[in-house]
């Protein structure tokens, strides 16, 4: 066993913090993104509920947030964080900027996935007398499923990257461990270890994502 210079409990805590941040923000972000992407697809100029105003507003908000680098976004929305979770620092406080970061990102990816669904399917749904909600629930989302899973996979990997910066507001996590112990204390073995862990983590997520995406697509 290589000596990493930090207690095992510290390593486990960091891993837990990263997993917590990634999956909670992913869950909330996905819900928001599904909603927003559906709104974008339905209201876009070729959509079945064409609405210029709603489309332009949502589209602009998504673009604006996507323009801000995460490290800046995090400190920029500190007042919002304070309002929502009652504190500006810590792992839970990091969830707010992570959600704000990932939701528009996933919205864009989901929008593309849903737009890939053959227009004829929507027409068939309308001809069957489906309501707008039913069109989304029974036609658009199931048909886009394979592509949506890949989008979530890409989003998850993006989130892992973002959590490394969350150390800046005291959120901890694997990235923070690498910076404070590995970089600042010149602990190269620890740095290497965290990098390997992150690579394994990202590879596993991509593999799992590909597996499920192929599974729902390949019939």
């Amino acid at each position, binding site marked *: 066993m290589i000596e990493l210079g930090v207690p095992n409990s510290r390593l486990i805590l960091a891993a837990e913090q990263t997993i917590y941040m990634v999956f909670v923000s992913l869950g909330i972000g996905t819900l928001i993104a599904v909603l927003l992407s559906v709104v974008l697809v339905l209201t876009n100029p070729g959509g079945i509920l064409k609405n210029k105003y709603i489309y332009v507003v949502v589209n602009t908000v998504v673009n604006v947030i996507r323009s801000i680098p995460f490290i800046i976004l995090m400190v920029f929305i500190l007042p919002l964080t304070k309002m929502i979770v009652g504190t500006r620092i810590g792992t839970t406080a990091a969830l707010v900027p992570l959600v704000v970061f990932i939701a528009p990102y996933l919205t864009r990816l989901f929008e593309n996935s849903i737009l890939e669904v*053959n227009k*004829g*399917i929507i*027409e068939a749904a309308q*001809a069957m007398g*489906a309501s707008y909600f039913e069109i989304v629930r*029974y*036609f658009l989302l*199931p048909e886009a499923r394979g592509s949506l899973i890949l989008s979530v996979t890409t989003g998850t990997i993006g989130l892992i990257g973002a959590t490394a910066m969350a150390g800046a507001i005291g959120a901890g996590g694997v990235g923070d461990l690498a910076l404070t112990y590995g970089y600042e204390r010149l602990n190269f073995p620890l740095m290497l270890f965290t990098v390997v862990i992150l690579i394994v983590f990202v590879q596993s997520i991509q593999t799992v994502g590909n597996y499920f995406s192929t599974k729902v697509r390949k019939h």
Partner: protein
Amino acid sequence: MINFVNISKTFTVKRQKIKALQHVSLQISDGDIFGVIGFSGAGKSTLLRMVNALEIPTEGRMEVDGRDINALDFSELRKVRKKIGMIFQEFNLLESKSVYDNVAIPLILNHVDKKLIQKRVTELLSFVELSDKALAYPSQLSGGQKQRIGIARALANNPSILLCDEATSALDPETTESILQLLKRINKKLNITILIVTHEIHVIQSICNRVAVMEHGSVVETGTVLEVFSNPQQNMTKRFVQTVIPDEIPPSIVETLHDDVRNYRLLKIRFLGNNAKRNIVYYINTHYKVETNILFASVNELQQTVLGIFIVQVIGDDSEINQVISYIERNKIQWQEVVL
């Protein structure tokens, strides 16, 4: 009863107005298999989509069973749509769902009880002869099988009308024929009115009882298939009909006619129904001093009625030929002189 009352539709694309439909009036009676034929861009699909309000007319009124479909609110319209089945050229099945689930979808949307759904889907799959494919996915099926599933799905809620948008255009001739026979069975057994748009004249010939011919957004000719096919009026119609019912002298025979120095006239004679059974040519040969020479003949069956077309070279004196013509007219047989 489907009633198009003076329907016009104008699309605006990049500030240019495109007249997709211009003052179309058509009536489709219950029990009809009504075919609309035209080249692509003639406005047929737009016309078809008026019936379930997938397209809304810019002018005119669309009536289905006496109700103005564009005056309904959305929930009423959805109820009406559930009683109008629709099938598509590209089938539009859900690739992510099994055959069973595809057929079940309209029933789920109609909040049918789960057990009843199972019974109905089983029934429908056996009707389209694909019971063994219930668990397959659309990508595992051939084009013809996909269209059968599309048909099963369209029939799920016992519609009174079935709309077919180029339903056989993506299929090979043999598969097309089997789908057409299925549509015929649906019309006869389930008593469903069928409206078909197509660019394939043989589709009209083989199953429709009435036809409308469209060109540039207008209906140029309409009537029973027998009327339109036996005596097409518009050039457009003639072109379509000629591809399935040829009525011209083959070119090599035309050439030999150029060298023929005898006095003759060429008569194109059309026999319809019982007329076809009488032996006109024999009568002419035995009663007039002329020689007859059949240059072209075709016999087709339309709507269980025989349509025969003959081009006869009648050789003899003008006076005798005129007597032959008046004999043909006395017998109320359609004829036309052919000019080379």
